[in-house]
């Protein structure tokens, strides 16, 4: 299978108070299309930074990132934004819905950004899939946390991404709601054949992916296939 994500010797250093702080160091891995992977590690280990670099939200200080064969390193922020719009979907711990837009409008935004027309029915269908067909005209503040995350899921899949990045997608939800969201993520992922990368503290959630990348102190300490991978393989 072709690789969708290829990181080689990626490092990230920040300047802080006149000193340089290395958050990621020599991280390399390749992820194949359609695969699922969890990035786990203690707080401050560099998980979120790694996710940001892999998704093209930031530029690596060293090394290279290829997303769907596109080298992100030399691209400007606007060029990377275009790549994200074409190929990437996001789910965040704190949902990150635009508070001034209704649920339906939030789902429509990625498609509108592409200049696509007649997208309302597609967005509505996605909301139906996540069980919020009748809440499309509600604003985020009028929805519960679980509902907001479901809108966020519908939005993430609206542009039919090749790869989905999820940052602690259940971190702000109670156990019951978390389970339902996780089911939804994996169902939609399977259905669309999307690659999934998620950052989590939750080992149970991590174990549902095909591969677990453990990092500590900015370095990969283990990269294991899970039982799911073995079963899938």
């Amino acid at each position, binding site marked *: 299978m072709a690789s969708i994500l290829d990181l080689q010797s990626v490092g990230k250093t920040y300047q802080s108070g006149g000193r340089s702080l290395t958050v990621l160091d020599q991280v390399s891995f390749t992820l194949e299309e359609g695969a699922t992977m969890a990035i786990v590690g203690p707080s401050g280990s560099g998980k*979120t930074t790694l996710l940001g670099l892999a998704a093209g*939200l930031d530029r690596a200080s060293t090394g290279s990132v290829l997303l769907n064969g596109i080298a992100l390193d030399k691209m400007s922020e*606007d060029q990377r934004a275009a790549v994200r*719009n074409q190929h990437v979907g996001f789910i965040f711990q704190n949902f*990150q819905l*635009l*508070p*001034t837009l209704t649920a339906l409008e939030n789902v429509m935004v990625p498609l509108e950004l592409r200049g696509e027309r007649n997208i309302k029915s597609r967005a509505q269908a996605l909301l139906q899939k996540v069980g919020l067909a009748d809440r499309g005209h509600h*604003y985020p503040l009028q929805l519960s946390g679980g509902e907001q995350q479901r809108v966020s899921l519908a939005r993430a899949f609206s542009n039919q991404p090749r790869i989905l990045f999820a940052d602690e997608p259940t971190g702000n939800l109670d156990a019951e709601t978390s389970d339902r969201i996780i089911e939804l993520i994996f169902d939609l992922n399977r259905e669309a054949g999307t690659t999934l990368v998620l950052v989590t503290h939750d080992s149970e959630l991590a174990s549902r992916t095909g591969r677990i990348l453990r990092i500590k102190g900015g370095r990969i300490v283990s990269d294991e296939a899970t039982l799911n991978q073995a079963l899938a393989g």
Partner: protein
Amino acid sequence: MKPAPPFSWLLQMAWRDSRRNRSRLLLFVSSIILGIAALVAIYSLRENMQAEVDRQAASLLGADLELRSNKAPETRILRLADSLGGQRSEERDFTSMVYFPKNGGSRLVQVRALEGNFPYYGELETEPAAASRSFRNGRNALVDQTLLLQFDAKPGDSVKVGNLTFRVAGSLLSAPGQTGIAASVAPIVYLPMQYLEATGLMQKGSRINYKYFFKLDKPLNTERFEKGIEPMLEKEGWSYDTVESQKEDTNRSLRDLTQFLALVSFIALLLGCIGVASAIQIYVREKIGAVAILRCLGAAGKEAFLIYLIQIIVIGFLGAIVGAVLGTVIQQFLPALLQDFLPVDLEPSISWKAILQGILVGTIISALFALLPLVSIRNVSPLNTLRASLQQDAGKRDPVRWLVYGLILLFVLGFSRLQLGSWNNALAFTLGIAVAFLALAGIAALLVRTIRRFFPQSLPFTGRQGLANLFRPNNQTTILIVVIGLGTAFICTLFSIQTILLNRVSRSAGEQQPNTVLFDIQPGQKEQLVALTQQQGLPVQGTVPIVTMRLERINNITGESLLKDSTLPQQSWIFSREYRVTFRDTLSDSEKISKGKWQGKAAAGAGAIPVSLEARFAERNKIELGDTLYFNVQGAPITTTVGSLRTVDWNRIQTNFLVLFPTGVLEAAPQFHVLLTRIPGKEVSARYQQAVVRQFPNVSIIDLGLVLSVLDKLLEKVGFVIRFMAGFSIVTGLVVLIASVLISRYQRMQESVLLRTLGASRKQIFYIIALEYFFLGALAALAGIALSLVASWLLAHYFFDTEFTPQLLPLLTVALAICGLTVLIGLFNSRTVVNRPPLEVLREEV
């Protein structure tokens, strides 16, 4: 690459995003509303005035053509007057004392002796109305209404002018083209010309203006008149006005007035724009999360920026419309406010041009100022979706930000160029504004830094909290100090200028200096007048002989060569004016030789007479030591040479001269005298003036009291108009304050709720907020007053050439008023923070 979303999507996103913020966005632009209102009101006034001047042009002059001079008409002029045909009126104007026998009051006025049916267009407005025509039929006078009021006189009473007593036929309300302010400086008395001779006021040395008014049978061929007759008039020392030129003159002075007021309004608008920029900065900070999400989903920086720019332009536009409507309403009241300065009656009407101009200026300038914080949206990183703490402010070094600063400066420069008509003035105005803003921002930063550095730890908890709030994150202290401070500086500087001017005049007569000047004293009257003065127990502090003459030639330059050669440096009036000259052998104590040598006595037959010129007069006209000046002393030519230049202190009530002759030359020339005295009080002055006017009706008196009261009245009227316009700046400052309090209310609520959760009482929260606004108001007032003191000192020192002593009490009053207002506004808009239970507040606001 993905295709860019269409512009309609950006509009749609701007609309969607504004949904939950509209009331706040309108709050942001509320600060520009007053500035635009003031601008539109002034523009509308200008439009209406111009239309009105065009409509009433003929009645501004009252005739088709006016010829005037301070020289009696000679043959050529009389011949010209005869040849013009149509109807003709003649007027002679001069200043003289009038005396009301009813109560013994007397005052210096402008006498106009009239013959003919002038005005041919418009009316002398009088009460009763018929008096404007009927006064010409007998020994009647029309007397300015303010003068009648002052001396409690009314139509039917008598007034004495020179040797003759006239019946007051009516009270004069207005004359063609006359502004109320002019009448209050020099009240007018109209007489029929046939009685002028008998008044005995047409004596040698009297300064008389001769005027002819024509109503022509056929329209004046302006071009032919300018080419054929103007050079002859200039040569004869006469000037003229046509309906057209009068219209231009009036329009020019109106333009000056409205330009000035428009600039004052523009300052209010700029202050409002700073308020907008500051509010948008907070708005942008709150929008970083939303922008980061959009960036994450694939929006380009430019697209995110445009979404918010569209919002701001739209609300700027809406604010400008509200301002324009308000301005149109305010404009209805301006004619009443400015009536003393307007030469025509004005019925305000809606001016669409003014409204459009105001909306355009308001939209552009508010968008430009909003761009300053908005440009940073382009640099918001999508990483903010992952880390809320990451709010880097890369904008500070953003070159685009400098571009925006440049655009703002260019706009201000361009706008002021349009108002002022010259690049130099526009540049001075722009620089002045920039320096004032920067100085206030500098003072604000310095004050805040000083407070931080020397923070009074010994203050009680509430005091420390209130003070520390001035420099907590996201504070708007500097902006508010600039905005409120500039309004304060404005008012205080106006006040100082008024004080400087009044002081300068009142100080001009120190303890022993003369405070009363009697002029037009004929040689035969001098001794008697000195005797009368001494009889009244008053000191004669000098009698000065005055000889009138004209300058005919400077070296080889004559009036004619000056007309032909525009490259010559001399001012055009140098040959046409009448010179009032004295002769003495010593300098007075207000004079100092700056160049050359003073010669007090001229030896007879020793060639050219060495005269002394006032240094600035010589400098302006490029006259050097040794130059030859040819004077005509009432028919007799005198050749002089510039022997010395003098600096003269003009700030005294005494006779000062541009040209000073030595003794031994002019003694035999026709002359009149000036007498200087010092009168200790009002009553003595009135008694003395009565005695002088009764015995010497041709002698005019200027007393310092009159000058001061006229000046005071004038300054009061001008000051009121300026204060009214400056009021827009002050109120704008307060609106910015209100907006800023409301915008930052959420942050304050969180802090107050936290404090209350930790056990602070409502009273303590109240004190903290009250103290914070007190400190803010005090700092703003302090900064404003500091700026105004510097400005006043500079004005006094360099412009008015006088000393400046700050008046502390009024400044303190202004400071207290500003503090009080700031505290009231702050507390009123924070009342929900203080008065309601914490939980209720949080639930509503979150």
